[in-house]
Every structure is written in structure tokens, then in C-alpha cells.
């Protein structure tokens, strides 16, 4: 796991491969987008604003969080603080991917980083640890998720109100089920990773009632990271 011998590359084929890897997941993102589009209209956004938000922000949890507060009297600083709090975990995702991202030229690096999300992070991180060297799969995976998210939002914002309830088809458990599947082999394969996972889960749940949205994930990630760092010292 420590070996980083191979050089990072960035190819057009990699973009396509990344898109194909995350295609099956992106399909299930459409109902979430529909739910967001409908909720945005409900909260007082125009269809163009709802679609514009999904296209420019592309971070579901933070978009829903802002809808809760959406009102012309709301201060811009509040919007920014909510978004930063919910999305601050991207900093950790980008830092974890930096080993590979920083091995490619800056233009490609920052274009790829612009499409970092939980799902393509989970997929790419795993692939890199198994020897993948093409950073473009991060971008390809992000792009296909982005298209599904924006298209879903458009359906929800412009369509009639009777959108599909994601929980009816189990789509609401999509992300937790996918993330759990991705980490399962690593977590069960090493004592250190197992311990880090337990610490992260406990910290995440225990801190949930006391921290603003998003921060418990960050605290848990740092706690889990420290377990790994201390174990390495022995």
C-alpha cells in the first residue's frame, strides 16, 4: 500500500473509463436530482436557478442544507458558511488524492479536482490503491455524476410535482451502501484499518448532535486518520 512507484498520468481514455465505472451509480443519482429540483421550486427558486445551482455547486448535501434557509432576507455570509461547513470534507478528499493529483500538470490537476465528490473519490481512491495510475478516471466519474445530477434537477424543477420518492425503491440508501462496499475489504483486512473505522464511526455518531452539519464527518475522518498515523509509528 505504501508503494507509489508508478507515475500518475491523465488520458482521454481515462475520462471515458471513469465515466463507465461510475455510470451504474450515476443512473441512481437522477432521482436525487429530481427530488432536489422539486424541493428547490418548493423553496422559491426558479427552474433556472435550481438547475444553475446543481450545475455550479454539484454537492447535494450542501444544496439541500441551503434550501432549508433559502430566503431573500438571508445574508450571503450565512449561505457561504453553510456551504463551507457541509463541503469542508472535500478538502480532506482532495488531500487524500493529492498523492496522484499533484503528479499531473496543474491545468489537468485543477480541472479534475473541480469534479471531486464522495462517489468518484471512493471509486478512484480504491482504484489508485490497486495500482491504477490514470487520474482522469476521477474527472470521468465526476462528469457522469454531474450530468446525472443536473439532468435530474432539470426533470424535477420543470416536471410536474409528482416526482418519484427515492425511498420507495431503496435509492436513498445508494450512497451508504456503495461507500460501505468500497471500504469493506480494507476495513476487514487489517487490524489498524478496523480500529480506525470503529473510531471514525463512533466519533461521527457521538459528535452528530453537537456539531453543525458536516463537521462530525471531518472530526471522524481526522480521528480515524490519527489511528492510522500512530499505528505506523510502532
Amino acid at each position, binding site marked *: 500500500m505504501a508503494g507509489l512507484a508508478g507515475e500518475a498520468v491523465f488520458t482521454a481514455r481515462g475520462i471515458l473509463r471513469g465515466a463507465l465505472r461510475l455510470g451504474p451509480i450515476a443512473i441512481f443519482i437522477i432521482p436525487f436530482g429530481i427530488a432536489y429540483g422539486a424541493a428547490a421550486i418548493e423553496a422559491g427558486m426558479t427552474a433556472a436557478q435550481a438547475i444553475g445551482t446543481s450545475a455550479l455547486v454539484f454537492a447535494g448535501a450542501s444544496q439541500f442544507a441551503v434550501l432549508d434557509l433559502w430566503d431573500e432576507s438571508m445574508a450571503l455570509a450565512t449561505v457561504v458558511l453553510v456551504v463551507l461547513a457541509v463541503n469542508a470534507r472535500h*478538502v480532506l478528499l482532495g488531500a487524500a488524492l493529492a498523492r496522484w493529483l499533484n503528479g499531473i500538470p496543474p491545468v489537468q490537476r485543477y480541472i479534475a479536482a473541480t469534479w471531486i465528490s464522495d462517489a468518484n473519490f471512493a471509486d478512484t481512491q480504491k482504484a489508485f490503491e490497486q495500482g491504477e495510475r490514470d487520474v482522469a478516471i476521477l474527472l470521468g466519474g465526476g462528469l457522469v455524476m454531474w450530468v446525472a445530477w443536473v439532468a435530474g434537477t432539470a426533470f424535477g424543477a420543470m416536471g410536474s410535482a409528482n416526482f418519484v420518492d427515492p425511498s420507495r425503491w431503496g*435509492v436513498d440508501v*445508494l450512497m451508504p451502501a456503495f461507500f460501505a462496499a468500497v471500504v469493506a475489504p480494507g476495513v476487514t483486512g487489517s487490524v489498524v484499518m478496523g480500529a480506525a473505522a470503529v473510531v471514525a464511526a463512533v466519533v461521527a455518531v457521538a459528535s452528530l448532535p453537537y456539531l453543525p452539519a458536516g463537521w462530525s464527518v471531518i472530526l471522524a475522518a481526522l480521528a480515524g486518520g490519527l489511528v492510522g498515523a500512530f499505528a505506523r509509528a510502532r
Partner: protein
Amino acid sequence: MPDNPWAWLAIAAMGLATLATRISGPVVMRRVRVTPRVEAFLESMSMSVLVALVAGAIASGGLRTGGAVVVAVVVMLALRNAVGAMVSGMALAALWSALIV
């Protein structure tokens, strides 16, 4: 409510703030020397982010989400196929909704 500048300003601010969170990871790491210990930290942190998201989802989603996660983990360990595991978890949740709620 018609299109108004406040809304678009807020949307642009959300977009820029989110972009900043996505770009700053690799930017910050250019200034950090990646020792074996830092590497171990990043490796277990990246796993922990995902574990924390799952734990939070179970905390708010309850037994139904928890059951879906267990199914996904078991299928993954048996078949080593993440998409298959994910679909199995969703199938359990759908069945749960159809039968219980």
C-alpha cells in the same frame, strides 16, 4: 418569485465556496512533506471519511439503512463487486419499504 440578482449572487457564492473546498486539498498538500506517517494518516483518513458518512446515514436512517449497509458489506466480501453490493443493499431497503412501512 421572479429571477432576482440576490438569488444568483447566492448561487454564485455557493459555487465558489464549494470550488474552494475541492481545490484546496491538492494545493495544501503541495506544501506538506509526505513522510510514511503522513501517508498512513491520509490512507486511514480517506477510509474514515467514507465510514463516517455511512455511520451518519445509519444514525439518521435507522435499521433500514443499517440493514442495507450490512447486506452491501456481506455481498462485497463474498463477490468483491461494489456495484452488485450496492444494488443488493438497495434491494433490501426497497423490500423493507414495501413490506414494513
